[in-house]
């Protein structure tokens, strides 16, 4: 099991190296290598998670190690999908290190096989977790794209075409990709929340328990809903959208991790140390 994780992390780290080589040297072969290494890592990662699932009998979100592993897995998966669709080669420079970082941190936490908890067996739970994580991974990517947008916009506005200008794609492509990430993220988050409610009703008897994570998820959902609304009506695109994507992701981080550590609630179980 440990070896598996080690292999996965190695692939992700090598992919990061590939992308950094691409950033500095700008030869397409580095970008392609980075991409395929990430694919390899993702496949191993999927196998590892599947293995863990079968071994323990329930979806592996028992402790911080497993939760972070699933988070890394979804970010890698979502990145691969968006990369295939939008060909934003430089985004790998953000995604690969992010995934590697998450996995390296995950490895620092113990992976005790949790007690066979019945509440983890439900299909609704699996769907809820996967949907929410995919949503959050999309928002993470949107944040990365937003950062790239701000970098490129600054280069163009200030007329100083430094290191990044050549290496980043057009503002239009960045904006469109960011928008697609947020749409996806929002859709998945909505779906995730709904399945969460269904699951909560099934297990605890009520849709909403005023659990801090539920509250903060609600706040997050409202924020992205507002962002999308403004984009569609007033045309909040470009710089504003990029900044909102970054702020949104900061709130997501809090919702995802901060709540578990700093506030009490039934979600805390999943991030026991």
């Amino acid at each position, binding site marked *: 099991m440990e070896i598996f994780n080690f292999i996965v992390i190695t692939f992700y780290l090598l992919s990061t190296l590939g992308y950094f080589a691409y950033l500095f040297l700008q030869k397409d072969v580095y970008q392609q290598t980075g991409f395929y290494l990430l694919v390899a890592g993702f496949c191993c990662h999927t196998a590892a998670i599947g293995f863990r699932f079968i071994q323990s009998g329930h979806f592996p979100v028992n402790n911080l190690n497993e939760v972070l592993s699933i988070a890394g897995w979804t970010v890698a998966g979502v990145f691969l999908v968006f990369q295939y669709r939008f060909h934003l080669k430089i985004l790998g420079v953000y995604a690969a290190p992010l995934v590697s970082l998450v996995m390296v941190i995950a490895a620092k936490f113990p992976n005790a096989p949790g007690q066979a908890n019945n509440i983890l067996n439900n299909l609704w739970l699996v769907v809820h977790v996967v949907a929410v994580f995919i949503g959050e991974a999309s928002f993470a990517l949107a944040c990365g794209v937003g950062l790239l947008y701000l970098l490129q916009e600054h280069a163009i506005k200030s007329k100083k075409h430094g290191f990044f200008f050549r290496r980043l794609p*057009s503002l*239009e492509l960045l904006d469109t990709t960011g928008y697609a990430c947020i749409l996806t993220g929002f859709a998945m988050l909505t779906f995730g929340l709904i399945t969460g409610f269904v699951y909560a009703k099934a297990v605890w008897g009520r849709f909403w328990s005023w659990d801090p994570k539920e509250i903060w998820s609600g706040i997050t959902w409202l924020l992205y809903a507002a962002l999308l609304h403004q984009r569609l009506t007033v*045309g909040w695109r470009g710089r504003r959208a990029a900044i909102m994507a970054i702020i949104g992701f900061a709130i997501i981080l809090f919702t995802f991790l901060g709540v578990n550590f700093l506030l009490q609630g039934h979600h805390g179980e999943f991030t026991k140390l």
Partner: protein
Amino acid sequence: MLDIVLMGLNHKTAPVTLRECLAFSEDETSAALKVFRESPAIREAMLISTCNRVEVLMATSDTPNAADTVKVFFSEFKSLPVSEFEKSLYIHEGDDAVRHVFRVASSLDSMVVGEPQILGQIKAAYQIATSKKTSGVLLNKLLHRTFFVAKRVRSETGIGDHAVSISYAAVELGRKIFGTFEGKKVLLIGAGEMAELAVENLIRNRAGDILLANRTFKNGVELAKRFNGQAIRFEEITGFLEHVDIIISSTGSPDYVVTRDQVKGIIRRRRNRPLFFIDIAVPRDIDPEINRLTNSYVYDIDDLKGIIDENIEDRNREAIKGERIVDEAVISFRHWFESLDVIPTIVELRDKMEDIAKGEIKKTLQTLKHLSDDDHEAITRMTNAMINKILHDPTLLLKSNGHHQNKSVYLDVTRKLFKLDE
């Protein structure tokens, strides 16, 4: 010894006033080549004349006389005393000439490194030389190798990569903002060569509708015809700002033609879609404060020049890689050049053998009248086979590269052994 010699002047050694006096049109080039062909000193010749250089490339074994022939011809043909241009002339021989040709074709010697026209100009000059039959073994090989080297330099280095003219720079920027120009509407305010070039470039890149605004409506209509666009009145500009994406401005107006307030008012109605202003005018037409508004980008002529300077620096860096490729090619050409001596010797050797064989066969067959035609053939084939086998090892030795230093010695001995020089 026949060698390659190049003589001429370029933008580095002669001012444009002199260069234009010595420029040769296509017909004049043909006339020049005709004269060169008739000169005993010049074996092969090619003349290239562009706005930045006039050069004569020759194959000659008598450089001083060849050079004089060219100088005298220039002087007479262009009615210019030799003393007027002699100081600006440079002359390269052998490897230096080869290197010069490679560098020029790869645009490493151009005013703007990486410019694409020079290769086409050299090809045209070579065309004329081949049609006038003034190019032979040496120049043919040299020019073909030149085209190959130029292609290598262009594709393996970045010297041609980024825009070094205003209109190209503007388009490059636009691409960084919009990604693609399809469906993007362009507004040209005023007129002028650079601005119109930029519009042409945008059209080439599949830009959408073109609108033209001019203080004199008639001029706008004229331009509109040229670009297949629509002319609008100067006063209507504000209204159209909402619909266009790229605005190129080049008027003689002393004040701003588009102000910050005009733009601020329509950003919302544009739903924040990006707006790109290219201000080529001096005094500036576009209020620079507009650059501070969201999703609006204003580049004036200094900004564009700044980008071009950056790109030129990059090209000069890439040029160093190009020089390396040229150096390699010069060495490889020198190897080919040296192998030239070997071929005639081998050919002469073979010819001599075959002559001897033919003579003997004739003599022998005359005394063997009873032989059939098939027998004749068999004997002929046998002698050919013998000659091939006899000459096989000597040919390999002479052609091989290992005896570089002694090649001329071997060639000399061979020629003496078989009395090839009589």
